[in-house]
């Protein structure tokens, strides 16, 4: 196999393994989904807002619930590698270690995206907004790509810390804030009838974040995991 093909095969294998483990254990996606739904329900019943205010809240609530649920998924994804020291098994493999990053990031992206897409009709129902639109799904996928690539990188950074379970959200939320703000603004804009072209500055900001965090993973993942 040539270098590029071997690299892509390794990315695919790490991703495929994460899917296989999730299928067997079913401990990641269901927990993320239930957690996200709880946030949606709680806010809906706790705030008792008028329909007008509810509509304004939908974009923010979608992203807050998704960010919190995704953090659970990221913790689960890295704890899977801590168990039995499986991460060492990946690091011993004769492939560039950034392939492990992209494989893990791809898995985290797929799990969080699935939860996000399942949330769309539920948030639509509770907050009386039609979120089932293609441009909105595109923004959601782009935002999740940026958020989970940063999360994958930071979860690797926190793996050797004693306080790793609380360290991830403490590091992730402030660094992901620009991405989350851009995603909320783009979603809100789409809900108020603007087009993707009119919201291009927010979309480009999310895209830049996704590229930046993936580039950081490519360059620094090996260094981060070194003892």
């Amino acid at each position, binding site marked *: 196999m040539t270098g590029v093909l071997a690299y892509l095969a390794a990315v695919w*294998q790490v991703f495929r*393994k994460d899917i296989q483990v999730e299928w067997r254990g079913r401990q990641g996606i269901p927990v993320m989904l239930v957690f996200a739904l709880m946030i949606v329900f709680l806010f809906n019943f706790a705030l008792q807002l008028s329909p007008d205010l509810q509509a304004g809240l939908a974009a923010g609530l979608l992203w807050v619930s998704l960010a919190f649920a995704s953090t659970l998924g990221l913790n689960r994804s890295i704890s899977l590698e801590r168990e039995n020291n499986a991460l060492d098994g990946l690091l*011993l*493999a004769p492939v560039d270690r950034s392939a492990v990053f992209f494989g893990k990031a791809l898995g985290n992206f797929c799990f969080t995206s699935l939860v996000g897409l399942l949330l769309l009709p539920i948030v639509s129902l509770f907050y009386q907004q039609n979120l089932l639109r293609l441009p909105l799904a595109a923004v959601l996928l782009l935002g999740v790509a940026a958020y989970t690539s940063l999360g994958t990188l930071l979860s690797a950074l926190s793996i050797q810390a004693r306080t790793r379970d609380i360290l991830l959200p403490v590091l992730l939320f402030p660094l992901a804030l620009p991405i989350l703000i851009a995603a909320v603004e783009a979603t809100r804009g789409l809900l108020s009838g603007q087009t993707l072209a009119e919201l291009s500055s927010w979309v480009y900001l999310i895209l830049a974040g996704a590229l930046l965090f993936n580039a950081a993973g490519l360059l620094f993942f090996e260094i981060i995991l070194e003892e």
Partner: protein
Amino acid sequence: MAANPTPYAAHIDIGGLSKRFQHRPVLNGLSLTLNDGDLCILVGDNGAGKTTLLRILAGLVRPSQGEVSVCGSSPIGNPRIRRMIGYVGHQPMVYQDLTARENLVHYARLYGLAKGEEVVADAIAAFNMAGYQHQPVRTLSRGMQQRLSLARATLHNPAILLFDEPHTGLDQEAAAFFDQSLRRLNQPGRIILLAAHRPQRLLTVATHVAWLREGAISDHLPVTALGSAPLLNSYLQEVS
């Protein structure tokens, strides 16, 4: 398994190796040379740095200072050298929710092994795991997980095999199975370095013993020459 694990000459050369974790020195100017066909038992007290040395050789830990050469190149950040290394650590490095077979298939794919399924079937047969191959790892005994770990580490027929306290937690039967596997794995074209806290049972199969003390190798000699090292001899008696 093939007779010659690699087209490269198996060789390990370590010179002036030091490793500090924050400000705590673990290895301090360690030097050691191992040649093709060596089965070297690395002995030393708990905390002497045996695990750190093995992890550096496996390319999992970056040395603070010194030279480490495995088959002619540094193992740090070098996938080509990692392909020649098999490492069995304290943990089996497998996924609890997957079956033994699925774990091995995962590693075969990750290593890009041609005829991966065939290699996995051979490994399952070689380590006598056929009856357990479809069980999730979390249901396997410590002995069976150790067999799985051995199969994982040798799947790609490595020239360098590193074992870290492989007898820990094994009952008599599992330990005997490991010793038998070790004899089978010890072949020309390969180096085996095995860290052991209680090495007596391995002296009949080993070619060399290296004693790690105060961060350096204080003795490294053939098993047949142990009589000429009274301090090491009395240490081995003490820990047996």
